[in-house]
């Protein structure tokens, strides 16, 4: 039973991770100019902090939730988000009750949860659908350090190699080690064995990665990588493909209108958390 589960799980997890990283993503915001998507996200990341009105926050939350649906966020990420938020709020609620909270506490917590959830939903809608390299180009055009975009390109290409190598090293450790005769109370021996294998696997991995890094960097520097990344001409060439069309402008205008509508709604039906 143990053998089967291990065989399936490690391989499955690896494949699932790769699928998450490389699956073609689509949806409402995927085709837009990354700079405008970042702007769209920033609107929702900033606006919730300007109000204590729960109606406004609920309206903003609804807009972001709709955006998440339109962006085709995967069920795994969405599920993790929902569970995380529900569990977190339950614990805070429980602790608040323990210290003698009342209805104002609940309202305050609802307000906080709505704020944080809106921002998380906005980031999910904006960035899950966006291709990482596109996003890094957008950030680069907003004067993020050139290293960020290099890191994304490098990580995008190296991830499968690294995961494969890590898996091989861990398998080697397991092959050479004698199986545990006794798992101990609650399987603590198995946990300790896994943890030590994990740590030991990093010893060869660090050496191998160091070697590979040197090859990569020397090859890059031969072609003048750092210089090109810093030079304005190189930057211009790299970002030349970014073009905004009228849909991008419509996106921002529509979003601003929706935010304004949310505030108008909150004005008409105000509901406040906190102490009055």
């Amino acid at each position, binding site marked *: 039973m143990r053998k089967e589960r291990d065989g399936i799980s490690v391989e499955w997890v690896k494949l699932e991770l790769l699928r998450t990283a490389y699956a073609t993503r689509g949806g409402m915001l995927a085709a837009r100019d990354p700079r405008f998507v970042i702007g769209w996200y920033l609107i929702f990341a900033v606006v919730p902090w300007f109000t204590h009105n729960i109606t406004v926050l609920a309206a903003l939350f609804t807009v972001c939730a709709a955006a998440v649906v339109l962006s085709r966020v995967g069920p795994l990420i969405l599920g993790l988000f929902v569970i995380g938020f529900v569990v977190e709020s339950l614990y805070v609620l429980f602790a608040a009750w323990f210290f003698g909270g009342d209805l104002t506490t609940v309202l305050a917590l609802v307000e906080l949860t709505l704020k944080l959830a809106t921002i998380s939903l906005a980031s999910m809608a904006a960035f899950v659908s966006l291709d990482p390299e596109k996003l890094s180009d957008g950030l680069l055009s907003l004067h993020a350090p*050139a290293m960020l975009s290099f890191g994304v390109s490098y*990580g995008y290409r190296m*991830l499968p190699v690294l995961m494969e190598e890590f898996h091989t090293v861990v398998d080697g450790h397991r092959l050479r080690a004698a199986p545990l005769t006794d798992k101990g109370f609650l399987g603590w021996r198995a946990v300790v064995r896994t943890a030590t294998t994990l740590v030991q696997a*990093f*010893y060869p991995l660090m050496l191998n990665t*160091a070697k590979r890094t040197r090859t990569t960097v020397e090859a890059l*520097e031969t072609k003048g990588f*750092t210089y090109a990344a810093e030079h304005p001409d190189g930057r211009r060439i790299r970002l030349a493909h970014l073009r905004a069309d009228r849909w991008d402008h419509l996106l921002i205008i529509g979003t601003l209108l929706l935010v304004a509508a949310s505030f108008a709604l909150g*004005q008409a039906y105000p509901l406040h958390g*906190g102490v009055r």
Partner: protein
Amino acid sequence: MADSPRSSEHLSSDVTRRSGPPELTSAQKLMVFVLSMTLFGLANIVTEVIPDLQVGPVTLKVSYLAFVPVVIAALFHPLYAALGAPLGEIVFVDLLMGDFSGIGELEGYLQMFLGIYVAGCLVRNPRSRAQLFAAGLTVVVIDKMLSAIVDIAKVWVGVDDAEFVPGLPQSILLLEGIGFAVALLISGLLFGALPAMALAPRLYGKIEPLLGMAPRDPRHPLPLAERGTGAFILLALFLSFVAMIAAFTSDIFGNFGVWEPDFIEQYGARFLWIGVSAALIVLVAAVVTVRFVAASRRGRAAQGRDTGTRSTAPEAPETPDTRAPEPRKTGAQNAGTRNAGTRNTGERE
């Protein structure tokens, strides 16, 4: 590039330098950066796979394998290791796995950067287990302490008069305290300090030649004093700005709470005020941004014009952040290192 990666490696001790190890070439800085980024990114993917264990309100989980950046920062230059490691987390886990959280990433980057940088500066001798132990704990203490402060600040800013809501401050503090203790025990001790104590001395002297560098020599500690203070002042300035802004905004909101009863009959007034102040803030931010962008454009254009006339291009810094504290090499120094390097190239591997 003015100097090849091999030019200044193995600046042996016979070269008379009063303090500090040999300067890293820009290629070597990039190597340390990429190595740190890759390894910590991979470590983070591994931690993503490790399941959490929920015991009541306490989540027993491995936040990150802190020993990886600690080992890299202990063996190599802490600044470049610290710049790379949190980026690895952002790139490998957040961007590739579609979990990028916008501004939140910046906050996480700064916390982790500060933690690793300080930890790497604590280690003067990578073979000393006591220093590695301290470094492993320091990373987690700094990172988690800052993140707890940010979390509490979010509650304080996000909720109207949070300190007067019954039960809220205590419960937030309690949960943050529990989270901090668990992280310190698991990420800091079990997956931070102890593995770092085991791995760093074994890697010392083996991994550095692979990047074409001399191992860190305890007799020639990194000249962190001047370098550290520069970076540290910048960072302190930035953090105090953030704190100031947070305090300022909460003040604004506080004032609105106070004003509100006066305007409660005049229906549009409050809405108007919020709208006007929001527009004002956005306007000021936009003006500042445009000015900054324009200035940097001008700077870049000037730099572009310069490059033709520069005979020996000085090392180009990897990121704008590193530019400030970085002492520039002068042409004479460059020539000196190159000569020294050519004498010793035979030593390599």
